[in-house]
């Protein structure tokens, strides 16, 4: 009982549904409509898409895309988040700027914040030489240990970071110059061998020799001290400990005496703001070898009235 309709449409007997009207070799298609909820979801998505295109950046043009009514950008989003974060930090940064670095340990919370900030700044500015774990390498001081060329309290570290080492443009920079004993012919290779033996003996790594001790007393003790204990005023390393910046074998020492290497460090005072430098100093101090700040004894005054 085919119910013929115009354009070949008819009601299918088995299902009671209308066909779409086409026929291919006897195969017909039922005109089954999309479910309403599906259709309405589809229309809603279209409406949403139109609104989205108007409001948000959407259509790429030749130079840049359409900006959208809201003016939203992902960069702006990020900048907003950064600004919010900065705003949250501003009180801490202001407190840090006010506090002299040697007073920082009195304020545990501020100290902790400074260490955290310093850790981040260290990753950007310092790891290139001192390493990600601040363990340094040959020629680059290890900042975790308790051996300091120029002092290991907060103020000394801040000073070192600010003015660097061997920076010609900074009058306050750390400068020390070890003579090139071999290169300039002050000592003969034999004498250098002897003095290197003596240096090793200071930390018990070699047997002492009288000639070396004599040479050391004449040439080296003025900076490194008679017992090789070093001198932070001139940046002369301690020779009686287990830590060697340029290596601790006899060959290393002989090479250093013959033609010393002089490491340089940038003066960060011109590149970083004082607060960041404070944070860096706090971080380096916190690595485990930091020393306590001791107020330099005021020059003895004789106020006693006669």
């Amino acid at each position: 009982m085919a119910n013929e309709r115009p354009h070949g449409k008819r009601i299918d007997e088995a299902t009671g549904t209308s066909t779409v009207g086409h026929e291919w070799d006897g195969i017909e298609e039922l005109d089954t409509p999309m479910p309403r909820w599906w259709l309405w979801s589809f229309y809603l998505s279209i409406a949403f898409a139109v609104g989205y295109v108007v409001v948000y950046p959407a259509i790429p043009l030749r130079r840049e895309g359409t900006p959208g009514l809201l003016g939203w950008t992902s960069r702006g989003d990020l900048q907003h988040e950064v600004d919010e974060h900065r705003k949250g930090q501003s009180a801490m940064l202001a407190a840090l700027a006010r506090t002299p670095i040697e007073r920082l340990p009195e304020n545990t919370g501020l100290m902790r914040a400074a260490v955290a900030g310093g850790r981040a700044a260290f990753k950007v500015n310092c790891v290139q030489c001192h390493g990600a774990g601040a363990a340094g390498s040959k020629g680059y001081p290890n900042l975790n240990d308790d051996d300091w060329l120029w002092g290991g309290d907060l103020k000394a570290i801040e000073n070192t970071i600010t003015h660097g080492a061997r920076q010609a443009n900074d009058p306050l920079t750390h400068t020390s110059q070890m003579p090139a004993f071999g290169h300039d012919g002050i000592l003969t290779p034999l004498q250098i061998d002897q003095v290197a033996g003596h240096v090793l003996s200071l930390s018990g790594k070699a047997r002492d020799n009288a000639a070396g001790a004599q040479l050391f007393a004449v040439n080296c003790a003025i900076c490194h001290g008679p017992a090789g204990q070093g001198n932070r005023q001139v940046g002369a390393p301690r020779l009686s400990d287990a830590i060697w910046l340029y290596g601790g074998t006899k060959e290393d020492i002989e090479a250093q005496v013959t033609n010393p290497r002089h490491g340089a460090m940038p003066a960060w005072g011109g590149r970083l703001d004082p607060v960041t430098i404070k944070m860096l100093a706090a971080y380096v101090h916190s690595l485990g070898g930091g020393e306590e700040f001791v107020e330099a004894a005021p020059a003895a005054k004789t106020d006693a009235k006669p």
Partner: protein
Amino acid sequence: MRSPDVIDLSRLADPVSAPQLFQKRKTVHNKRVDGPFRRFKWLIMAVTLTIYYATPWLRWDRGPYAPNQAVLIDLAHRRFYMFGIEIWPQEFYFVAGLLIMAGIGLFLVTSAVGRAWCGYSCPQTVWTDLYQHIDRFIDGDRNARIRLEAAPWGPKKIARRVLKWGIYLVIAFWTGGAWIMYFADAPTLTHDFWTGHAAAAAYITVAILTATTFTLGGFMREQVCVYMCPWPRIQSAMMDEKSLTVTYKDWRGEKRGSLKKAENNPEAFGDCIDCMQCVAVCPTGIDIREGPQIGCITCALCIDACDKVMAEIGRPRGLIDYITLEEADREKAGGAPRSAWKSLLRPRTIAYFTVWGAIGLIMLFALGTRAHTAISAAPDRNPPYMLMSDGSVRNAFTLKLRNMESRPRAMRVVVEGLPGAEMWSDEIDRKAAARSLLVTVPADSSASQRLYVIAPPNTPAQDFEFNVTSQDEQVEMAETKTRFSAPGDE
């Protein structure tokens, strides 16, 4: 008895009587009924709804450092409180265990009493029941509701519908509102919610749950059970011939006929007088006389209705009754009826119960004996060790000390092994380095403690332990093994 699962293909050509793949829904207007099963349903509904709405408002004193809500899922702080029990995220297996117990509990109930979950305590059933009572309260009983539905839309019908749907909406909102109370301090959240200070998630959750309750309970009702819910399909595999189910005893009821016909010719007719009461009271709108079917949630309201009719016409109760398929075959063959309780105790239900109980006992044991103190140590990896100027070797560790008690506790950390080693921290100066040190861990939290351990020169790399002991009457101990790195240990 016609089986609804078999489609008679010869009838497909006739579009009127042929089963359709999609059936247009006919609203179910179930009639009020009273009886033991209806009263049991009332009881279950009262208990489950009370549990759901009231639980977040129960208080439980945990001292000043923990919330005082008896049941609280504190997502922000990653804690789950349930009366005297507190669960941390890493102990989520307790929740998994609870879910497994719930699953096996459903198996147990299904194999013993069939779809009792569906019939009495499923939220969909409880809320549908609640909404059907609203229908009755506003629009009257079955016949009045059928008339109202057929009536054209006029002011009276609109007013009725608006009132009814308004009440639907209030209940739905209350349902969604109760849900969020489990996730925050209920009184505070209620205040924040109405003053507009609650988190967006709270409003969104309430909106979603209000919409689902309104739709599923108010309008979709039995369609959820028939079309959406997977559980009836799983249950049909879980049930066996020994599971209780609501059964029309066709061998006793057929051939059905009106009371008058049956009185005239008692030999030709069975007990069923075709009064259609079982159909009228059914909340899912099925005819139980067609046999077991997916739409039957075994709520037993038809039993109540039929028993009442049987009592009125002076015939024995139980023409429709809870019996097992096995029992049905026996009765059909002429056997005497046996008590339904017999089918409850059998190897399968006992096995389910054993597994269910065992998991519960294991969980209780684990909960009762778990330590409230823990320690873990992470050695610094860059640099792994540090040579000090006196030649001694220093390692840095980050200790995590866990205190699961809701009060701050002092804990003593001790280095075990590693001869000659001492330790200090950022708070304790190196000059005060010792084999042990005290750390105070805040209530109900983990404390991170950075430690420097220093060993004499030439100490080789080796394993050692950190021990922790709580400095209170519990004296809980925990230990962790870690490694001390030294030069030459690359």
